[in-house]
């Protein structure tokens, strides 16, 4: 089966995180508002972004303790992350572990949610 979400492999420091079920990637380009009196009442945006950031959200089952261990470590929170698609496209950059939360239900398997924030350049290489 190719093209399913599981074929998008997220690697954190070169190794896939076990138990992941959902990955969400959000790219935000902060707009620079350059409207002035000459804009005749229309908003004008500068063609270049003020700041581009990428946020990756992950959720799944707690089968891998690396994220959990990092969450409790205030230092060295930046790690190399690559997200490789089934078509060979790659999103790569350094990411800071911003948040990690765990759901522990008495009659189920523990689940987690984590948010990674880009730091520095993040690249996208299209696949075929």
């Amino acid at each position, binding site marked *: 089966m190719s093209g399913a979400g599981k074929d998008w492999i997220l690697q954190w420091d070169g190794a896939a995180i076990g138990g992941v*079920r959902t990955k969400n990637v959000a790219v935000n380009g902060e707009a620079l508002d350059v409207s002035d009196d000459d804009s005749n009442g229309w908003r004008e945006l500068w063609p270049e972004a003020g700041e581009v950031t990428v946020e990756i959200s992950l959720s799944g*089952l707690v089968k891998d303790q690396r994220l959990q261990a990092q969450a409790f470590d205030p230092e060295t929170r930046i790690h190399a992350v690559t997200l490789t698609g089934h078509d060979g496209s790659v999103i790569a950059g350094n990411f800071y572990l911003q948040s990690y939360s765990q759901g522990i239900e008495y009659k189920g*398997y523990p689940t987690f949610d984590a948010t990674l924030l880009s730091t520095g350049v993040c690249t996208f290489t299209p696949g075929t």
Partner: protein
Amino acid sequence: MRLVQAQKAIYETLTGDLPLMAMLTGIYDHVDQGTSFPYAVIGEDGASEWDTDTEVGADSTITIHTWSRERGRKETKEIQERVYEILHRQDMTIEDAIFRFLLWQFSDSFLEPDGITRHGVMRFRLVYDSLPVS
């Protein structure tokens, strides 16, 4: 899925318990005509996917029926109690799988239309990851 291996693991756990086996004439999947009471049957099981990016797994239900001809429900309840003790929140080994958890969901008991047979039903939730078949 590891449906056969999961049923085998449940069967071996139940048949490996001496107090339970002392209460029953046997534990079956198919029951022959004329089997003596009381006995238990590993009955219907269902499974749904429990996959992640890195593993495939199954979230399954296992139903255990008990059949008794005792007057009253005491024998049925005692058998159900013992099955609960040895399965609920217990560990087990499943061939070609990684066991995750086993939880009791509910029990019930009925008087069958013949007026003399007591039928107990218990359902458990069994979750496991599949390993490559050895």
